[in-house]
């Protein structure tokens, strides 16, 4: 309200905009008596200096923030770029996997069947249900000349020999034409050695398909080798280990499972 108005208007208290516009400067400038109107330069300069400081500080803050904002923006842009690159990579990977899926399903059960057949063939070789051939070693043993009980080749001797051959990497073994499988028993029945419950007659010819070099090299130092060395030296037991490039081992038909099936599915 302008103090110079002699009488306040009726709407003076509500005349906000008028008031603002009409008294834009401090009314005190008008009421200060003329004699007191001084303008000391240093006082004014001090006050405007304070105002300038306020403005300058604010300005400096804004200037400081600008590069920061720019940095953040660039960081965000880089992150977005990296993320979209990653999305692209993943999409490529998805496309690749889908392509692979299509190929596999188009190969269909045919591919699966061929794999199963190959697996079956491999297992049949190991299980002894098919005849096999390949390089390996031949061991021919015979009873000794000495007149003693130890001079006879017994089931335990053959078991040691066969187990050592397995240990050295034999893949298929037969004794006198009888295939040795997981169900083969090498036992004695009376005076005879039996394999697959069939009596054998001496000499015993053990054929093993596999890594011939390893089997020959491993044998002398193995327990079986030492045992047979002992037999040879003390009882004159015949033992002859030779390698062969081509051996043919028959199948063991008795190994086929008739009543048993796998208790757990694969």
């Amino acid at each position, binding site marked *: 309200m302008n103090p110079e108005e002699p009488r306040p208007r009726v709407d003076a208290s509500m005349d906000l905009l008028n008031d603002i516009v009409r008294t834009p400067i401090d009314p005190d*400038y008008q009421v200060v008596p003329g004699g007191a109107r001084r*303008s000391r330069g240093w006082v004014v*300069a001090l006050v*405007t200096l304070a105002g300038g400081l306020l*403005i300058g*500080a*604010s300005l400096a803050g804004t200037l400081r923030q600008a590069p920061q904002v720019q940095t953040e923006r660039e960081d965000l842009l880089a992150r977005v770029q990296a993320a979209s690159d990653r999305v692209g990579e993943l999409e490529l990977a998805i496309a690749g996997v889908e392509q692979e899926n299509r190929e596999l399903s188009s190969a269909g059960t045919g591919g699966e069947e061929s794999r199963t057949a190959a697996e079956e063939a491999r297992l049949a070789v190991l299980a002894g249900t098919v005849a096999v051939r390949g390089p390996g070693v031949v061991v021919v043993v015979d009873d000794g000349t000495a007149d003693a009980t130890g001079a006879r080749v017994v089931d335990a001797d053959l078991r040691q020999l066969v187990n050592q051959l397995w240990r050295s990497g034999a893949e298929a073994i037969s004794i006198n034409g009888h295939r040795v499988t997981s169900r083969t028993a090498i036992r004695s029945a009376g005076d005879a050695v039996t394999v697959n419950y069939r009596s054998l007659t001496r000499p015993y010819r053990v054929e093993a398909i596999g890594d011939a070099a390893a089997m020959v090299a491993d044998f002398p130092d193995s327990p079986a080798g030492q045992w047979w060395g002992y037999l040879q030296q003390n009882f004159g037991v015949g033992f002859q280990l030779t390698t062969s490039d081509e051996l043919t081992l028959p199948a063991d038909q008795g190994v086929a499972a008739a009543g048993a099936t796998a208790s757990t599915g694969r």
Partner: protein
Amino acid sequence: MYAILGLLVGVALGVFLQPVMPTALQPYLPIAIVAALDAMFGGARAYLEHTFSDRVFVVSFVSNVLIAALIVWIGDQIGVGTQLSTAVVVVLGIRIFTNAAAIRRSLFHA
């Protein structure tokens, strides 16, 4: 003129020294600046109308700045800080424009 010299030196000091404002006072800096501008324009107008008094100038400057900041602070406390700062800026803005117009009239007689 000392006033303009002081203003320029103040701005330069503020920019180059970058005085650290207490974080609590940071939100009130813009409002304080508007209030200071208002006081300075008022002083300039009074000077041109030959009614300038340094005492009134100092008092109006300090009280303008303090009251503007106080109003916004109270607004912040009761949850209408932004609205009140808008109100302060509007009122002071109008005054600044009016004073600027009066200064223009005094200087150029237009």
